[in-house]
């Protein structure tokens, strides 16, 4: 039995245990321990992450239509599996304590919740292990249905959003199936290797069709433009820790498949050759621009949200753009940045969702206009959110900065000012939006009804803190993650980034150990300077001054709604919901078409049918 067999077996057992024992008092902990065991099984293959092993086969395989179906892990699968299992572990941990009890008391089925979560992890591992295009498709479908399951758990509205997702996923799967059939027709096999060998000889028109079909198929899962509408609402409505899990890793499966098929097998160099007629652009530029718009538009949609979970979920869509951008640029810096961003983003997004869920747990709402001043009541949650937003905004000293730095730097090396500008516009929008998030929840005035709120229970705080440590440590020593991304780069055939523990070794490189140390020492000196001054007197929060009117406890006012009026004054009219409009157009077109087909097919219109048949027959006879 290989290490991969062990991993998949433990993962399958986790699903079974979750379904069997999920409702027990210790059920959640049991499942969490099993995730830890999955992690241990993954560590048995850690050679993959350091280029000492190239591939781990599974001993399980099936033969279908003279095609051998294989499952195996390489560096890329290992890297994504690490994040998947980590996200599963922390989410399940978070769900096992008070959150789970509350969920059960409110009528939720913990058995279903843990089962759905474990099933998600299992199906993702199966997808990550796929060894040819057919197993990739099987894994793809399994993942889609597993995500649907966990999204639909909450029922009601959530079910509607989950249905929306599954409609998108179906369309994507059809595009993917079309792509795979096209490959089969061209190559005659579902084997990875044969596609890789055949790709350089493919005609440009075939390749265009293939790239469009595959990118749309994978893009639906990634929620890149114009398929971005389903994700935020569906994730936001998923039960707490489930949202943290989905937000952290689920849609990254699209990116994984994209890397495997488009980057590794077809090759970015092939995309560069595919020029778009009458423009200066080629297929790579097109994808890069899609990525940049996927950064900008969802980020600025997030800026307008006033529900914390939706705000985060929309940022999730936006951050996908950075990963895709880095990977499409495909030089050593960019691809390392894109891959590293998958890890970094998962670490802080899961944490941010957890903080928001903890706030909901304590206050009952995630409405940014109904919170405020919780810093004094939930300081540890605040700390976690602070670390998370610094990461999400991509500022030093957190890990988000390193991956974004790599992407920016790759765009400078590549000489693409407009893409760079787009990426930075996204980052600036993120800073505005995350400040609003932390300000409206934790800063400002405490509401009367939240005076008695306490810190979140330990079962929630510990996973948050653990993730916070990961976010900080991988920001301080980015080499830890860059080792893995380098192994991935080597295995998918992209130039490997020269790096060291502190960052990037190149001219104009980055050394985070120095940067972070100097920042911490700077803060130390800042503290010193601060305490050089006279003694300060701490006053009650509401003891403050407002232009001649003293704010009193009777007139509470937390500035939260429409937080950026100046900005919205200018860019407000640019929000036109064009994509919603487009979606409605497509829906009504499909609706009309299906009604027409139904009318033709099922209702009795014999004369029309006869007429059509006669016309067809006549034309066939004559022509």
């Amino acid at each position, binding site marked *: 039995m290989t290490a991969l067999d062990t991993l998949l077996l433990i993962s399958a057992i986790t699903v079974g245990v979750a379904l069997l024992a999920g409702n027990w008092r210790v059920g959640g902990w049991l499942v969490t321990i099993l995730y830890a065991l999955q992690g241990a099984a993954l560590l048995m293959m850690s050679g993959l992450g350091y280029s000492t092993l190239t591939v781990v086969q599974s001993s399980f395989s099936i033969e279908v239509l003279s095609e051998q179906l294989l499952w195996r892990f390489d560096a890329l699968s290992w890297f994504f599996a690490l994040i998947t299992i980590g996200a599963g572990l922390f989410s399940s941990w978070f769900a096992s304590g008070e959150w789970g009890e509350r969920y059960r008391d409110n009528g939720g089925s913990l058995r279903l919740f843990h089962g759905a979560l474990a099933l998600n992890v299992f199906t993702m591992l199966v997808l990550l292990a796929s060894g040819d295009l057919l197993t990739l498709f099987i894994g793809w479908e399994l993942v889609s249905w597993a995500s649907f399951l966990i999204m639909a758990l909450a029922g009601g509205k959530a079910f509607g959003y989950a249905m929306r997702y599954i409609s998108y996923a179906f369309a994507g799967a059809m595009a993917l199936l079309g792509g795979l059939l096209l490959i089969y027709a061209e190559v005659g096999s579902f084997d990875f290797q044969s596609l890789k060998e055949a790709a350089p000889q493919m005609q440009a028109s075939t390749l265009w069709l293939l790239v469009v079909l595959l990118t749309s198929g994978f893009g639906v899962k990634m929620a890149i433009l114009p398929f971005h509408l389903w994700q935020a609402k569906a994730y936001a409505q998923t039960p707490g820790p489930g949202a943290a899990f989905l937000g952290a890793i689920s849609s990254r499966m699209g990116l994984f498949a994209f890397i495997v098929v488009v980057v590794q097998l077809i090759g970015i160099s092939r995309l560069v050759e595919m020029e778009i007629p009458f423009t200066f652009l080629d297929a790579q530029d097109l994808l890069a621009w899609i990525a940049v718009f996927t950064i900008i538009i969802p980020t600025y949609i997030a800026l307008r949200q006033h529900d914390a979970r939706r705000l985060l979920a929309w940022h999730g869509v936006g951050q996908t753009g950075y990963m895709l951008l880095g990977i499409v640029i495909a030089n050593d810096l960019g691809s390392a940045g894109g891959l590293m961003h998958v890890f970094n983003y998962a670490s802080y997004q899961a944490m941010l969702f957890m903080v928001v869920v903890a706030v909901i747990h304590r206050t009952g709402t995630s409405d940014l206009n109904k919170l405020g001043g919780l*810093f004094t009541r939930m*300081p540890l949650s*605040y700390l976690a959110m*602070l670390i998370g937003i610094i990461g999400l905004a991509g*500022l030093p000293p957190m890990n988000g*900065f390193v991956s974004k*730095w790599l992407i*920016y730097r790759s765009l*400078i090396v590549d*000489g693409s*000012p407009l893409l*760079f*500008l787009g990426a*930075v516009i996204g980052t*600036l*929008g993120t*800073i*505005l939006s995350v*400040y609003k998030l*932390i*300000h409206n929840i934790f*800063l*400002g*005035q*405490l509401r009367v009804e939240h005076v008695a709120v306490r810190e979140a229970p330990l079962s929630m705080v510990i996973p948050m803190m653990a993730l916070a440590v990961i976010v900080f440590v991988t920001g301080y020593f980015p080499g830890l993650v860059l080792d893995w991304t380098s192994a991935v780069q080597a295995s998918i055939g992209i130039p490997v980034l020269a790096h060291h523990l502190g960052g990037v070794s190149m*001219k*104009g*490189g*980055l*050394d985070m150990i*120095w*940067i972070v140390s*100097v*920042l911490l020492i*700077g*803060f*130390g*000196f*800042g*503290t010193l*300077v*601060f305490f050089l*001054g006279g003694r*300060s*007197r*701490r*006053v009650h*929060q509401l*003891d403050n*001054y407002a*232009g001649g009117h003293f*704010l009193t406890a009777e007139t509470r006012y*937390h*500035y939260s709604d429409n937080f*950026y*009026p*100046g*900005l919205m*004054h*200018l860019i407000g009219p640019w929000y036109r919901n064009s994509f919603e409009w487009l979606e409605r157009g497509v829906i009504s077109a499909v609706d009309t078409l299906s009604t027409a087909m139904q009318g033709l097919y099922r209702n009795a219109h014999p004369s029309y049918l006869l007429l059509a048949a006669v016309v067809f027959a006549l034309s066939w006879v004559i022509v």
Partner: protein
Amino acid sequence: MHFLELLVELLLMPILAFVIGLAMVLMMRRIGARIQRRVGPPVLQPIYDIIKLYSKDTQISHGLMHEIGIIMAVGGYIAAETLLPVPGLDGLADKGGAVTLAYMLMIPALGMALGVGQCANPNGSIGISRALTAMLAYDIPFILVIFGASYVYGTTNLAEMISIQQQQGVSSWGIVQMPLLALTALLILPAIMGKHPFEIYVAPAEIATGPMVEMSGKFMGGLFVMQCFQLYTAGVIFTTLFLGGGVYWITFLPKIFLVVAIPMSVAYLFPRYRTEDVLRLMWKWPMLLGLIGLAVVMK
């Protein structure tokens, strides 16, 4: 390089920055005074101000985050100064570069924003909302400038940019190579420094409606120190990118003071822009100039 030597450099750089920053604050006030036909403050006034603020009897703190915010604001700048090469002192210039510096400079802003948020004064929050909007306004053209300079010099390392300009003479200076980008940078300088006519987000004249509303004593003092660093940083970045940096302080200092003096002299003549007008202005002229400038240097 010797480790100890580097350590001394790292210590020296923020101190120099602070002292020069104090002188720049003095210059700024003198310019303002001359334009308004006043005498202006005496030479040591900025130092008196800081001592006064730090030693006040009434120091009102609104909670832990209020204090940490001020510490982040000052500490972030202290750290950022070590990334900014000046004559004789390269510091950590080879460990970060222009992009890192641009993002390091957001840490103090974030610290101040968090500190003000903790004060629970809606007027403070409104000020931060304006400040972040203004940051969005000026950072977009600023990033074009950074990109253009990195492209022209072929590196993001600020120390290398200086040595390239020093070796090849005035004709290789940024201002000759990319005049449009230099103009862009000059236009956004007052906004970066939070000065006229873009100072609505600081609102120094009507304390009660800006981020400073709850700042007293050493909290205000911290922001004063931050302002010194801010002026210095803006001057040095511009000089490094466009005016050849400096090998000797004697040639370097006039440059950075000149850079700060130009926008100051012009700025006091203008009335103030509203937040949305700052956005509109920044996204129109500097942006347009920056894009054309980029197109010119990249051909």
